[in-house]
């Protein structure tokens, strides 16, 4: 399946991916409004690691054998059998963080405001991950089969 991969050699550590991740998952799909108006502004679903000069963003790998799905105590975490996308049903999620415990990528974010596990859904709504689309240096690629 197509996944987001980071090229750390050209990640500039600007964190625009985070800005656009938030925007993409905000009820406004606009940076300014997401930040200025959205009272329930979501947490970014991206982890940015930085130890200069290295930096990269890391998001859910949508593992084939997703441990988070198996470990989830509520059944909120699901892997779509068709698309392979792992998503968290926030209605079911109770914020027990078992997924956080088992995700070896550390890619699941605790959204403490909403007490739900927050993770990359590959911007399922728009079909193209906002982080990839807006990465100013093409350090993120959305592709099949790794890089």
């Amino acid at each position: 399946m197509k996944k987001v991969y980071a090229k750390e050699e050209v990640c500039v550590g600007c964190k625009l991916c985070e800005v656009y991740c938030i925007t993409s998952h905000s009820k406004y799909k606009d940076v300014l409004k997401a930040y200025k108006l959205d009272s329930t502004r979501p947490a970014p679903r991206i982890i940015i690691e930085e130890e200069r000069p290295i930096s990269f963003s890391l998001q859910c790998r949508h593992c084939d054998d997703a441990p988070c799905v198996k470990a989830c105590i509520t059944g909120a975490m699901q892997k779509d059998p068709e698309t392979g996308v792992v998503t968290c049903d926030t209605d079911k999620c109770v914020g027990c963080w078992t997924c956080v415990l088992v995700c070896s990528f550390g890619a699941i974010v605790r959204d403490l405001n909403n007490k739900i596990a927050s993770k990359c859904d590959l911007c399922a709504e728009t079909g193209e991950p906002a982080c990839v689309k807006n990465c100013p240096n093409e350090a993120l690629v959305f592709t099949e089969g790794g890089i």
Partner: protein
Amino acid sequence: MDIVIIGNSAAMVGAVEAIRKHDKTSNITVISDEKYHVYSRPLISYYLADTVTEEKMAYRSKDFYQKNNVKTILGTKAVSVDENKKTVILENGDLVKYDKLLIATGGKPFIPPIDGLDKKNIQTFIKLDEAKKLKSSIKPNSKAVIVGGGLIGFKAAEGLHALGADVTIVELADRILSTILDNESASIVTKRLLKDGIKIKVGTTIDKIVGEDYVKEVHLKNGEVLPTDILIFAIGVTPNTDVVKGTSIKINRGILVDRNMKTNVDDVYAAGDVAEGFDMLLNSNRVVPIWPNAYIQGETAGLNMIGIENTTNGIFPMNSIGYKDTYIITAGIINPPDESYDVMVKADLDKNTYKKIVLKENNIVGFILINDVDRAGIYTGLIREKIDVTPFRNQLLKDDFGYINFPKDLRKSKMLGQEVR
């Protein structure tokens, strides 16, 4: 082929989902004494605390059985197994034939043999029915005594406190959550509970129960007497091996299984809290009664039952638990038994954060994280994959420890889609 699963929880779901990925035709029959659609057992404390409705406790969607073509016999207990005739005997005398059998009966609560157990308002807390019962009997300011400060007791305390009960935990060990916490981390958690008025008695246990029809007070071994409206036993669970008693299926603490989750008897498998499977850290068999293990073991059993060779790498204990704003994630060996382990700790007791990593040789074998729990799974992964942490050992405790601290090759092999399945 007829596949029979005794049990209707995580291991069952793991097995069914694994089977149906490859095999759409075999008959699957699920037998359980509980009458409910498969639900999430860990959510009973959330149910108790009113944070989830019964509706939302469904572990899988309502059409789970139908979608997976599973026949269910719910509300009827399986009482024994005839491994020679390949038959499960139900409490109503019905016989269920199997070609492959998965025993996933889970655990049963342990209640010590003490005086006064016959009083009312004494119960255990591992099933939905028990949660319902508890919920109906509790009233604001009810005095609740929980015997056992382990995972179940801890969550029960949270739920009861949320309902306005006056809660006291009685724990024999010197700290609560003694299997997953060390002293320092337990003190942080204890402090948090005390702040909410939850009382904790450690180093002692129940001596006897006093009351007429209903429980009235509990006498502790240290002499203390606790006025009690409701008494909950949460000392622990033991593998529910009743159904195989008297068979040739070998039991130690739980049903002994190999790495395919097969018992010593052909065509009989066991998974979940009832099974005593391989613990990769102890390098021996052990009952690890936690939800994720149950699913994974069920999955492994399911695959092997339909002839797809699959082994688990083994399991190890891991828990994510919390009380309101206090988060606890732990895994593996957290209290090293001998000198051959190394321990790294970073604690900030003012901020109530605690990070402990236990290493054996060059591998992480366990950790405790209190509050600073983000990305805990990276450590879990390092344990699970037995990755040599030597190159970044001194960075393990960093606040923002992550893939960036991995050697480049390791990082890239993990991150860039070259992960080994």
